[in-house]
């Protein structure tokens, strides 16, 4: 049986990242779905960038951005006393950035589908913008939220390149499951690599089945 610390660390990372992205991604997706601003297209492109860039490119720039001599890295250093690079916090920052499109795109599509009509109806019934968002948009876009949450969570669990660049391989701090598998293969410990890999395959499959299962059950009307 392999050491399970990487598993718990990975779940913690994916959980924290998903919660943070839900908070950051929801308003961003709302803005993208609603705005007529000329900045919409550039922002949309920027959001999608992590989808197409090699993880090493993203990891390289994040490393430059987060290291203690860079403004963000040194700010973090003075605030918390720790570094962002090669730490769990740094991994969270990196994960939020590379998983951003997996949260924002399904949400923006869902918000777009809900459209303006139910919002106007809600406003005519006396619901303010925030009230209308939570009482009408969230329930009507529930499937979009489920898709976004599952995809973000699963994608964060599976990321390897960025994590390796930014976090390295520190047990209990940055050694997530994908890194642990890599190391076990490197050291020819195929037995443990199998347990972890197969576990990931099954987990990802179940997550996707749940998502598509809900997505496929269309509600009439």
């Amino acid at each position, binding site marked *: 049986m392999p050491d399970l610390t990487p598993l718990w660390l990975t779940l913690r990372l994916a959980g924290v990242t998903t919660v943070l992205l839900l908070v950051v991604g929801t308003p961003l997706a709302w803005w993208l779905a609603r705005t007529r601003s000329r900045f919409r297209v550039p922002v949309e492109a920027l959001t999608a960038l992590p989808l197409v860039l090699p993880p090493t490119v993203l990891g390289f720039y994040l490393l430059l951005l987060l290291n203690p001599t860079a403004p963000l890295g040194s700010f973090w250093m003075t605030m918390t006393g720790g570094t962002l690079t090669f730490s769990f916090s740094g991994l969270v920052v990196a994960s939020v950035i590379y998983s951003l499109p997996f949260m924002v795109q399904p949400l923006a599509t869902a918000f777009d589908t809900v459209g303006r*009509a*139910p919002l*106007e*109806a*809600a*406003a*005519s*019934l*006396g*619901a*303010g*913008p925030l*009230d*209308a968002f939570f*009482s*009408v948009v969230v*329930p*009507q876009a*529930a499937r979009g939220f489920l898709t976004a949450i599952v995809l973000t969570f699963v994608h964060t669990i599976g990321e390897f390149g960025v994590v390796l660049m930014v976090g390295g391989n520190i047990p209990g701090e940055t050694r997530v499951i994908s890194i642990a598998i890599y190391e076990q293969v490197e050291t020819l410990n195929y037995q443990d690599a199998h347990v972890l890999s197969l576990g990931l395959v099954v987990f990802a499959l179940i997550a996707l089945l749940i998502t598509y299962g809900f997505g496929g059950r269309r*509600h*009439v*009307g």
Partner: protein
Amino acid sequence: MSADLLRLDIRLTLDDFDLALAAELPLCGVTAVFGASGSGKSSLLRTIAGFERPDAGSICCGKDVWFDSTCFVPPHRRPVGFMFQEARLFTHLDVTGNLAYAEKRAPRTSAIRRTQVVEALGLGNLLKRRIAALSGGERQRVALGRTLLTGPRLLLLDEPLAALDRGRKENILPYLERLPGEFDIPALYVSHDIDEVAHLADRVMVLDQGRLQAFASTAEILERFDLAPYTGRFEAGVLVEGEISGHDDRLKVTHIDLHGARLAVPYTPHIDVGESVRMRIRARDVAVATEEPKGLSIRNLLPGIIERLEADPETGSAELLIDIGGQRLRARLTLASVEELTLTEGRSVYALIKSVGLEGSVGMH
């Protein structure tokens, strides 16, 4: 009238269209906003509701300012109820959920109770239903109930019948007719159907290409020849008021007294004798005779005087306005008959009415 006024002065530019109008509407009864599609009716309603923000002007309801150069009250703070063409019920809630949504957000001063609305609109056996399981007419009834529960000071109805077929329309029309009166809420009713307008409205705003063409009482609007391009030639006609004088149970007719003259209309025993009713008489259903005709199957015969006569040489027809003792009828004849009968303004004639549409009791609004 001592009722509050809705004062509108609106200039609004949209992508392919602009609206510019000023009007003062009494906040009582039903005001129809009438015009072809693209005339700006819906934009006007959306602007009053706050869904569109005008470029300039002002919107005041009684003493409250909803819009002017310094303020814009957002839609959810305006005490208006908006009924959309497509109902826009919340599909993630059932019927009860939709009603409760409005009730929860209504001002505490609202005197309208859910039980009252459910009963008035016959929603009792729909309450547990999902929205997807409702027919078009049922959806509009629920939407109307939901709107009423917001306790609005003004109802804005944006062609609520347009998406329904004829049978469903006739199902919901009585509710629309009764409710503003029953709940004492003034309403603005958008429609492109002159029949609907004649049925429901106390006064009419005629809109064309974003401009106000006419604003007057329904009867007056229907009497005006110059509005024919908007009100339509085929449907042109007037509203006449009379009093039920009796029901003939054997022959199945109801008699109406029109200042001495008698009119027979289809049997409507549910309206009591002595009650005032409103009738719609189309110009194409009125024929004219210069002497009292005998041996005729048409039994509705009213003496009158030609008040106006307008010939239209292009179509070979003529429009007549006939004074029948204070009220007026419109008639459309061919130019040939006008010449043969030597009809002129001021001449006494008999108006023969082929059909009368009884629009219901007066004073419901």
